[in-house]
């Protein structure tokens, strides 16, 4: 029994990490239909910049804020320098640009920082919290809380604000968006800034648990992408639920079946879900009248 | 036994009954028009007949055979095809290629033959190409044959769709607003084309808001409103039907009559 609880706690912790990454995907996707494969790099930058500014003597909160701010700028630069000049290119080409950007950022990070793994102290210490015989570290609560807050923020943004609608409109039909007076260039800039900020925030929150190195981005992006697809791309609810489910699946498989094939089981479940719901758990099917 | 027989067809989206219990039939060479206000369910009816949507009630019979749940490509192979209200063009292919695709059934052989470019496959392709060129002439797009289809204007694309559908040598052809985006003169050309096709024995289902055209060429008219059939009959009877006038035609029809004079 306490084992089950431990598996669940582990699953939720890991799931929250995935959810944070998946949430980062949503904005850029919603604004441009592009899955930004450099999203994992934003997470990495969030962690790495915090590590290095913290080591340089900045207080941790300040280091974290600085990391988020700098990463947002990187996101904006990515949009301005790489994606905007390619406007009008097919979506696959844009995706390749984000893959190129991911390689570029990784290459830059290994030059600017180093190739070592790093970590900074947990925000509220490492004393585990005991719950009915299972344990969870306080940092997990930060991660889970962060994921939930980002989710609520995004959900409000997309359902309640005109700017959020403008973002959706831009992806849906860029030409029409311009015709109604939306500055689509600005929407893209905003989206990249926000996505990057969410990514960096994820990096700041998870580094005490997962550690950070210049190349952690790829793995995180992959899991985050899978989580987002499980939940339904573009929907914050999907990102949250998809992330947590993926984490739980892995933890339960590792606990009860085989740790060796836990990723396999996770992917098989994703395939099974997509088989029944081709748009993921919460994805809306687009209605295209003929 | 009619060539095409539709009975009790219906479908719903959420709470809305988009089409409900609609039936009619079409014979070779007949032009059956389906008219009705926007959102009456005409396109949805076409979608069900052509297999794009699966109806939740009713039947479609082709030559007496029940084809209600048949997939579009099966129906196409049986000789039923259509054009679209919202253009469905192969944008990245040339205008000519768009039409050649219409010859798919007669052109395609075994996969191996295609992969190895065996003479049989090449021969079939050449025939298809030549025939496609003929068809393009017929819709006056032969000059644009090598253009990318995506570069054509709206009206030209409408005609391209018709050519593509004709390539299949259908027995039943569903045309969804073929004259939309065409001016009076262009509409008349399409008008003639449709009449010609009917004469050659094709059964034509036509959805069109251009009443001049509908009244001129239809043999039979089915009127839908809110998914239901509210009237049916010859052009004259339908155009005088008060329910149809109220729901669809309106009284202000003199303008087009005026233009006729």
């Amino acid at each position, binding site marked *: 029994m306490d084992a089950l609880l431990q598996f669940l706690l582990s699953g939720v912790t890991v799931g929250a990490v995935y959810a944070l990454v998946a949430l980062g995907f949503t904005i850029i996707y919603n604004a441009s239909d592009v899955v930004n494969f450099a999203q994992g790099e934003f997470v990495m930058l969030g962690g790495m910049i915090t590590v290095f500014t913290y080591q340089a003597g900045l207080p941790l909160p300040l280091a974290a804020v600085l990391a988020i701010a700098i990463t947002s700028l990187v996101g904006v630069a990515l949009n301005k320098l790489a994606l905007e000049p390619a406007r009008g290119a097919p979506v696959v080409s844009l995706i390749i640009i984000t893959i190129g950007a991911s390689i570029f950022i990784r*290459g830059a990070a290994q030059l600017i920082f180093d190739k070592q793994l790093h970590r900074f102290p947990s925000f509220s210490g490492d004393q585990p919290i005991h719950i009915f015989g299972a344990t969870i570290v306080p940092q997990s609560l930060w991660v889970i809380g962060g994921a939930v807050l980002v989710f609520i923020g995004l959900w409000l943004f997309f359902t309640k604000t005109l700017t959020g609608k403008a973002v959706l409109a831009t992806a849906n039909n860029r030409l029409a968006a311009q015709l109604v007076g939306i500055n689509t260039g600005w929407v893209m800039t905003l989206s990249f800034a926000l996505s990057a900020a969410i990514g960096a925030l994820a990096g700041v929150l998870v580094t005490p648990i997962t550690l950070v190195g210049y190349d952690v981005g790829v793995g995180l992006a992959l899991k985050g992408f899978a989580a987002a697809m499980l939940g339904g791309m573009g929907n914050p609810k999907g990102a949250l639920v998809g992330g947590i489910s993926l984490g739980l699946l892995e933890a339960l498989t590792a606990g009860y079946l085989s740790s060796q094939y836990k990723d396999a089981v996770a992917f098989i479940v994703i395939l099974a879900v997509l088989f029944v719901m081709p748009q993921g758990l919460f994805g809306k099917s687009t209605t295209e009248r003929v | 036994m009619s060539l095409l027989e539709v009975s009790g067809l219906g479908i719903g989206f959420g709470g809305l009954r988009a089409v409900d219990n609609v039936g009619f039939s079409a014979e070779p060479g007949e032009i059956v028009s389906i008219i009705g206000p926007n959102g009456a369910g005409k396109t949805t009816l076409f979608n069900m007949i052509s297999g794009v949507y699966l109806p939740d009630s009713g039947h479609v019979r082709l030559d007496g055979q029940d084809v209600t749940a048949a997939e579009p490509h099966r129906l196409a192979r049986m000789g039923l095809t259509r054009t679209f209200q919202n253009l469905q063009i192969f944008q990245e292919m040339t205008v000519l290629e768009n039409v050649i695709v219409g010859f798919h059934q007669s052109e395609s052989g075994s996969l191996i033959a295609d992969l190895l470019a065996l003479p049989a496959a090449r021969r079939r392709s050449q025939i298809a190409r030549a025939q496609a060129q003929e068809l393009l002439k017929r819709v006056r797009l032969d000059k644009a044959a090598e253009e990318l289809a995506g570069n054509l204007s709206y009206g030209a694309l409408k005609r391209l769709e018709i050519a593509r559908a004709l390539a299949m040598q259908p027995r039943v052809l569903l045309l969804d607003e073929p004259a939309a985006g065409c001016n009076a003169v262009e509409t008349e050309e399409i008008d003639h084309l449709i009449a010609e096709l009917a004469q050659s024995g094709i059964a034509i289902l036509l959805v069109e808001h251009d009443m001049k055209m509908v009244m001129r060429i239809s043999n039979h008219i089915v009127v839908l409103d809110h998914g239901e059939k509210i009237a049916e009959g010859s052009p004259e009877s339908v155009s005088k039907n008060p329910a149809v006038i109220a729901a669809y035609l309106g009284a202000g029809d003199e303008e087009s009559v005026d233009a006729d004079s």
Partner: protein
Amino acid sequence: MKLSSKWMQLAALAVLVAVLPLFFPSGYYYRVGALIFVNGLAVTGLVILIGYAGQISLGHAGFAGIGGYACALAPAHLGLPPSLSILLGAVISAVLAVLIGKPILRLRGYYLAVATLGFGILVSMVLTNERALTGGPDGMAVQGLALRKILRGWGWKLSSGEFWYILSALAMLVGVWIALNLFQSATGRAMRALHGSEVAARTVGIDVARLKLQAFVISAVYASVAGSLLALQNQFVTPDIAGFMHSIEMVTMAVLGGVGSVLGAVTGSAILTLLPQVLTVFAEYEQLVLGLVMILVMIFLPRGLLPSIAAKLKGRGE
């Protein structure tokens, strides 16, 4: 695609392949050439799937893995000669492609991407975890191809580099020839049509599901054969061959070169195979430059190298 006829393209490619060795200063260049051709073969398969049929796959390295390991395992466990192992790998890949393609090809866009990604990861996971059979992450040795010895017996003494250069070039040329045939055929046209509009394709009698499956299977066989050739050439194979990064690399090659164009695929493979070799002079900056090149190509030639240049020549802008 319109620049020249099928035979012109093939001839140009063949001449290039035949003439290049005249300028090779050392045997190493044969190795690079052979890699370009093997990659070109795999990517040509992807052109059929992505460029013609418009279906994405982020898991094609899985098929390369199957092809590669077939050549490692079949000779060791079944006593099959390597040449037949290539065939066996292709058959297994094709069967697997049918089995998984049926359910997942109903998915669209990113959902298809994640499903294929899952497939690729499953394959690489099995190769990694079934250590007893596959040697795990450390990989396993692959028996060489007997053909070279046979040729030597006929008095044709080829170095390993030359041998693989020729063999890979032939394989690629055949692959390109088939892909070009397909492009102009009814099947290929139908694939491109479903790319444009599935509904319209269906209403002209195209069995969309079947056609997608055909594209998937054909491209899987391409990847499998390429994987086999790679394993045989390297005489060693590790699960990296089936890894996610390899899948991404193949798609990147296809898109960089121009995903609708077969010659583009070869160009893309050439670029992405050569770049790391050229960039060794930058050592530290290799990743940086690689990423930058990818971005710049896509910005200035958004439809990929060949098609964009062809379009520019023809005068129709983007």
